[in-house]
Every structure is written in structure tokens, then in C-alpha cells.
């Protein structure tokens, strides 16, 4: 059996929208979460508040699910958008999920916001969620977990349906100038799934999905993996780490920016761990086998 280590999320880093970030911005909420121009303003405010090297968009993990019909509570100035009620009750229904229309709605506004920031000279990370996180908005997680165990073939199909949409999302984002994509699916971590199911998910989906994404994405695109995904790939022998010399010690975010166009995957640290420094001046790139 695979030995997948868990990465414990820490909470000393960027936590997203809060009253401290939104105070004094003269924005109205939740409206500010829905339009490209205000999203760009918010992203810059969040970057300044966190002292980060890049702007991160969107501010929640509901954009993909909303674009597929999910019901969203758009939040306020204290807490960002989040899932409202579930719209599905059986995993079979998930096969009917619609394709994402990238020319409308919040997903479009998010892409536009990335473009605005890019034109303003900002480094932008588009945060893309994996299947478990997306499904969390659409259906009670217990139906998903149960189906993963009892109907693995069905869930494989569902994962790939979502995976194809995510690959299209990344390709679309590139058109808007996005060069850094983060990919995380912490709702499907080994701490929740257990080693056996986590291994199954890597072999049924994650590895091939990322392999295809690597081929589809442009040479200048860097995919920043959540360390939980990194550990899942390493633990199942689907990837290895390759050390690369940096010009000197620097923060992880800064190092990722430096690595654009040099490697395809990063994933040694959570991108929200803003102050994590690579003191030894060495970067660990992830190479898929």
C-alpha cells in the first residue's frame, strides 16, 4: 500500500477576506466579489495586507461549482462566498453537470480580474479547486465518500468530467494572461480519505489529470500544487522531487515567480504560507513520472 504523508494546513498564513482587509476600501459586499474591477481591488488589498508576492484569485472555492449550477451564499465584508444548499442528492446526477461557460458569471469576472491585475504589472495566481472541493458545494460529502468506496467507476467518471472542465479552465486562464495556477483539493486529503482511498484517487484521476494538464498547458505556465497533492503523488510513486538552485534564499512565492517557464510543477509548500523562506536557496520542483 502507498505511504502517503499528510500535510497539515497551518493557520499562520493568509486566511483570505476579513474585516481588516476590507475596511476602508469603499466597496459594497457581496457585490465586490462579483465584478472584475472590484475583485482586482480586493486582490491587491489582500496582497498588501498579507505582504504577499502575488495576488490570488478568487477569494473562495465556489467559483467552479457555481459555474456548474451550484448554489452560493455570497457572504459579506467579514466572510467571503461559500456554499449554500446542495443541489444534488445522488452521485449519478453529477454526470449531468453542465459544461462551464467561461464567457459569463463570476468565473468570467475572475478571469477578467486576472487580466486587469496582469496589466497593472501584478503577479497573479489563479486558485483552481480539485473535484472533492468542487463537489463539496454541490452535494453532501458523505454521498461522494460513499460513492468513491462503493461505486468507484462512477466516481472516476465524475472526477474526469470535472477534470476536463478544469483543464479547459486553465487553458482559458492562459488566454487572460495567467501564468501561475494553484491546484488544491484539501477536502480529498489522505487525512480524510485514508491511505487506500487516497491512493485510488491518485491512480484513477489525479496523476493522469495532471499529466494531461502538463501537456496542455503552455510552457510558461507554472502549476502550484497543494502539498497534500504533492505528498499523494510522491507517496504513490507517481512523481519525484528535483532540486533546483535559486539565485539565493527567497520566499516561496518569490521563488515560484522565478520558476515560471523553468518548470511545470511546484508543490513543496502551501502558497498561502506567505512568509515561508527557502533559506538554502534551493527549490524543489515536482516531476511527474
Amino acid at each position, binding site marked *: 500500500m502507498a505511504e502517503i504523508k499528510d500535510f497539515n494546513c497551518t493557520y499562520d498564513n493568509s*486566511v*483570505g477576506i476579513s474585516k481588516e482587509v476590507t475596511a476602508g476600501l469603499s466597496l459594497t459586499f457581496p457585490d465586490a466579489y462579483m465584478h472584475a474591477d472590484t475583485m482586482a481591488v480586493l486582490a491587491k488589498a489582500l496582497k498588501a495586507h498579507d505582504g504577499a508576492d502575488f495576488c490570488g484569485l478568487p477569494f473562495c472555492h465556489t467559483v467552479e461549482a457555481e459555474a456548474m449550477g451550484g448554489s452560493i451564499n455570497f457572504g459579506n465584508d*467579514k*466572510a467571503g462566498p*461559500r456554499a449554500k444548499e446542495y443541489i444534488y442528492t445522488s452521485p449519478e446526477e453529477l454526470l449531468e453537470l453542465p459544461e462551464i461557460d467561461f464567457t459569463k458569471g463570476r468565473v468570467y469576472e475572475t478571469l477578467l480580474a486576472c487580466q486587469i491585475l496582469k496589466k497593472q504589472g501584478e503577479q497573479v495566481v489563479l486558485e483552481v479547486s480539485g473535484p472533492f472541493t468542487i463537489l463539496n*458545494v454541490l452535494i453532501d460529502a458523505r454521498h461522494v465518500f*460513499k460513492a468513491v468506496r462503493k461505486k468507484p467507476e462512477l466516481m472516476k467518471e465524475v472526477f474526469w468530467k470535472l477534470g476536463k472542465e478544469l483543464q479547459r479552465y486553465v487553458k482559458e486562464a492562459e488566454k487572460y494572461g495567467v501564468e501561475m495556477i494553484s491546484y488544491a483539493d484539501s477536502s480529498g486529503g489522505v487525512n480524510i480519505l485514508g491511505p487506500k482511498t487516497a491512493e485510488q484517487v491518485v491512480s484513477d484521476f489525479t496523476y493522469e489529470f495532471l499529466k494531461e494538464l502538463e501537456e496542455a498547458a503552455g510552457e510558461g505556465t507554472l502549476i502550484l500544487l497543494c502539498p497534500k497533492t504533492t505528498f499523494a503523488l510522491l507517496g504513490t510513486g507517481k512523481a519525484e522531487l528535483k532540486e533546483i538552485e535559486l539565485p539565493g534564499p527567497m520566499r516561496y512565492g518569490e521563488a515560484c515567480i522565478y520558476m515560471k517557464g523553468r518548470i511545470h510543477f511546484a508543490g513543496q509548500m502551501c502558497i498561502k504560507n506567505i512568509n515561508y523562506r527557502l533559506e538554502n536557496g534551493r527549490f524543489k520542483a515536482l516531476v511527474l513520472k
Partner: protein
Amino acid sequence: MSVKEELLKRLSDGVVNMEEDDVAEAAQEYLEAGYPAFDGIMKGLIDGMNRAGQLYEEEEYFVTDVLLCSDAMYAGLDVLRPCLPDEEDKAKRKGVIGVVEGDTHDIGKNLVKIMMETAGFDMIDLGRDVPLQKFVDTAREEGAELICMSTLMTTTMGGMETVIHLLEENGLRDKVKVMIGGGPISQRYADKIGADGYSQNAVEAVKLAKRLLDIA
């Protein structure tokens, strides 16, 4: 092994092995054989769920396993519970449980709820993204002795302290014990906001609840 013991074992094993349909079938056979529903629940279903909890504590089972075991347990309960004499349900201690406003991560909360119910508590589940006043109102209306809150986000953990203040303002603080948990929560945080206890996982939550309410 007597027929009753065999059926109890089938109920217990069915829960541990996550066999929802077999548990429901075994529960039906158990009732048709004329055995008391209470024993079927306690010595069959709850026994199985306790074994699952033990496996979870030993890291043999994970969150998904426990959720599936609980589905099997609830399938059995659906059959046996209607045949339970009324008085069997009355002595249960009540708790209110939910994920605080602003957060929708409810896997941990669901797990705590399951283990608390397994341990004999009557849990009123308010769900996720729960308005803070609702914890207090429900505790008052239901006469609950416990409020269990969880969150996975640092931005929403402050809501737990607000609930404690609301309990004080409503004159309920000395009547209700407050338990908290979730990713960013710690004993230190519980001490800081004046919660009665913190637990790291669902099994520990049951022990904490029993300790707080002086249940042997």
C-alpha cells in the same frame, strides 16, 4: 451461540463492515424473531459503531470509513427505533451541534455528531454556516446541556466566542457547557474564549462531553 447472539453479531459486524443493506435486513429478522429493539440497538448497532470508533482511534479507519459505518448504523436504527418503548429515549442528554457562521466545512462536525449519538446523546444538528444566535436559541428551546461548535477557518473562529457571550447575555452560560473543535482550534483557544472544553477528534469529543456532564 444463540440465534439472538448471532443476529446481534450480524448487526455489529454489518456496521463495522459498512454493509447498510445487510444491517437493515438483520434488524428486520431480529425484530421478527421477537427480540427487544433496545438490545438490538445497544448490543448490535452501537457495539458495531463503538468498534468502528476504536478502529478510527487506532487509525485503521478514516473519516470516510466512519461515515459509511454510520450509514449502516442509521439503516438499522430506522428499523429498530420505531419498536423502542417510549421511556428508553427519555433519559438522553441533549446537545446542540453545528459549524459556525461563515464556514461550510462540516465533515468533522458530522463525525462528532455520529459518535455523540452512538454514545447516547440526543444531538440537535443545526448544520453548517449556522447563525450564532441560533445556537443559543436552540439550546434554550430544547433545554440542551451542551453546545458543540466547529470551524475549519480562522476567519470564523471568533464566532465561537460570540456564542459564549450570547449565552452569558441570555443568562444561560451556567446551564450549558460549550465544546469546540476544528482545524485551527486548540485548548489554548478554548481557554482564551472561555469555552468549557476542546477536543481534537470525534472520539475525544465524546469523552470530553461525558466528563463535562459528569457521565460515567
